[in-house]
């Protein structure tokens, strides 16, 4: 089945079995390894991508569901090529990255949170990200990172 969608700002179309999982499309067919798979059953959030700006679990989505959508993966978050998006920069600075396997999903979930709620409280951050599992950090520095990202974005007068 021919599927056309926008991926990280660029139009793509590919011929895919309609029941192929989106996480496999991204990783295996399109070579975007930043999207991680850690459970395959919708329990961990590692495979989070943004579809029309909304976080979706790519391990539970099928290729056909991409038709006509606007998809952002971690590779497409920063607009200016090499440099990191302020949220990514905040994760680095706050020490929110250890093994890093949960990180792309966390960053994308944060992007959505901050676009809805530019100055969330720590409780709101914890609530909003509670579908994403991290086994390394104990979450505290991720909450710090989201707060820092919110600051960075407001300073710049940007939204996520």
């Amino acid at each position, binding site marked *: 089945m021919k599927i056309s969608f926008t991926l990280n700002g660029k139009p793509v179309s590919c011929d895919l079995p309609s029941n192929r999982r989106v996480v496999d499309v991204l*990783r*295996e067919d399109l*070579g*975007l*390894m*930043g*999207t*991680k798979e*850690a*459970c*395959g*059953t919708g*329990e*961990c959030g*590692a495979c989070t991508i943004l579809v029309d700006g909304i976080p979706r679990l790519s391990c539970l989505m099928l290729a056909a569901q991409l038709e006509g959508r606007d998809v952002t*993966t*971690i*590779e497409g*978050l*920063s607009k200016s090529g090499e440099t*990191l998006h302020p949220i*990514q920069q905040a*994760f*680095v*600075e706050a*020490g929110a*990255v*250890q*093994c*890093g*396997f*949960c*990180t*792309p999903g966390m*960053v994308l979930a944060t992007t959505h949170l901050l676009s809805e709620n530019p100055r969330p409280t*720590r409780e709101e*951050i*914890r*609530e909003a*990200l*509670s*579908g*994403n*599992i*991290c*086994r*390394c*950090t*104990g*979450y*505290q*520095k*991720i*909450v710090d990172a989201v707060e820092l990202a919110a600051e960075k974005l407001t300073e710049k007068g940007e939204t996520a």
Partner: protein
Amino acid sequence: MKRDALPNQPRPLQIGEPIPRADAPAKVAGREHYAVDYYAEDMLWAGVKRADIPHAVFRGINSEEAEKVPGVLAILTAKDIKGSNRQGVARKDQPVLVDDRIRHRGDGVALVIAETREALREAIGKITVEAEPLPGVFDMEEALKEDAPWIHEDHPGSNILLKGHITKGDGATAFETCTHVVKATFELPYQEHAYLETEAGWAITEEDETVSITVSTQTPFRDKMEVAGALGLPMDKVRIIAPYCGGAFGGKDGITVQSLLALAALRFSGRPIKMWWEREESFIASAKRHQARCRYRLGADATGRFIALEAEILYDTGAYDHLGGAVMALGLEHAGGPYRIPHTDLKAWAVYTNNPVGGAFRAFGVAQATAAMEQMVDRIAEKVGRSPLEIRRLNAVRRGDTTPIGVTLTTSTGIGRCLEIAERHPFWRKRESWKAKAGPFRKRGVGVAAVMHGMGYGPVIPDTANAKIELTSEGSFRVACGVVDMGQGNAHTFLQMAGDILSQDLSRLELVLPDTAWTLPSGSASASRTTYTYGNALIDAANLLKERILKRCADLWMVTDPKELALVPGRVRHLPSGRETTLAEVAAFMDETERTTVAHYRAPQSPQLPDLEPNLRLHGIPHVVFSYGVHIAGIEVDLLTGAVTVEHYLAVNDCGNILNPQLFEQQVQGGIAQGLGYALMEEIPVTEGEMKTVNFSTYLLPTFLDVPDMEVIDAGGNEPTGPYGLKGIGEIPTSGPLPAVANALFDACGIRLERFPMTPERVLSALEGNRP
């Protein structure tokens, strides 16, 4: 203070500063390639058919239907293995693929190689196992009985993999002299590592017949030996490449996919082959924290001074050793915690059963022992009528004291300082008023645990590292690191050390991750030894290189005293004249071999307890350097549901001098979170060797809502043998939360559980039993 005197000059890295990790930018951008991220054009997939029978004589497989699946290229069994077909660190008792006996449900019986993952799955589903079931052994006490079926015929006499018995002073007879005696049993659950990156890798047999395996592992150099031995390959024909792991926590300390991948790669020479366990397979086949049963008796005099301790700890190692002997030995060494106890009688066993495999997991046997001991200490405190911190301060070891197994502490011993800091902390001092503020149908409690953790491999196995550092022709530095970074950040710490010594900023430092073809053997990323051991080697290598560069430059400039020269970012400067040259220019005057230095370091080993049973010494008793800590948990219990929430958490740590506060906090916070999971929700019920929770919807992990903000305090220690005074911090935080929360639960509601974790169901039923 102004941080940057010369705004345009990059600032060299400094030890002690919270410099963000060098590996973070690539990870946060999704650019870091983990073992699981390798795909190639003509790549094949390999996968394993698991026995799903707990104990049986293996007769073979029926693969006729599976072979017909389009895209299936080969189905291999133990018959295709040329080597010993045995893996294991201490005892080589685990087959790559079962040949004679199935010993647990996760045993692999066949290796399937297919063109696609879909074909692979389909074929695995079509293989059937031919076996004659044997009676299974699923309980440790049953396994110890004379007439229990033997799980390993070549381990004659019993199902005891390893046992240890250590006494000190008058042993258990000293209980006669005690005023207060408390006694209890603790049942501790399995814990799954649940690293987000499941076991994965890819392999290829190169033209020169070398099998290259890129794998998520903690132990590249040991893997090389294991794969070569199991498959009958010459050592120099196996190469292991170890990228950053997506988490490991002990679960990748040893073979997972390596030999299987190599076996597949040997069959299809020249073709890349990938293996990636799904989450359920990861649960079924991987080693976990040993479930354990601890029986404790602790006696004290009228003032609360400990007199006697008796402990019996049973560790269920499941079907294979998988470091189970070493886990047991470390637990035995730490059975009595950081206390002066004149008389002890300590016993531990690692027992074979047909249950899932028990293996290395952060805190390695000490988590179980600490869970028991720290709840005993609380019981005594209550009997004597002293506060939990008071009783610990009264009994805490100091340098020069002997540990409960009778080892004299000769290195930094900061438990006393940790206790003092905890006692002065406002949360502790104001705990009563905090507790009084619990809402209706809720109660609050505050609990304490003291922790201790030995570092390194113990007195027999050489605990060594070999560092290599190179000045490149471009004038930057390349650190070749033979020890894995599984997420804990040691790779960054190594750069920070090299940057400090060589006065360079991050842009001039590069880290080469472990590759047995290029980096040097430096042991495992485990045992809280990674930064200590490799760091000590790296300091020597970097100093040597610095001296060489400055001397060469002194010759070039005809300067008599190289001390007049200094390294600055990217350059060498002559201090009296201010004259400078770039490092690239200096490099051009050095031969390639001169630009590389290597250094070897061997960690101190204890000369004590020379008469201890040699097998226990081999398995790691005793250690020399220990880290210490004190944890305080403030919890709230919902009396209607039994749910426990952790509201406050505080950890004071003596892990020597802190090289990077941010990374230190990462380790402590992450360790506490895993410990809270162990305390409150993580468990794997097993019946007849079958795990009832094999995915994240039934095996619950702590989320953002289960872990509070934690206060991590450095007690300001300094260990003279450590690199810049550091001691290990990787494991110790994991041992504290279970007993701290359990003690808080007693403080809140007056209940003590025997079985863990402290799920709402268990808490509620204890609350009900407690009601008049």
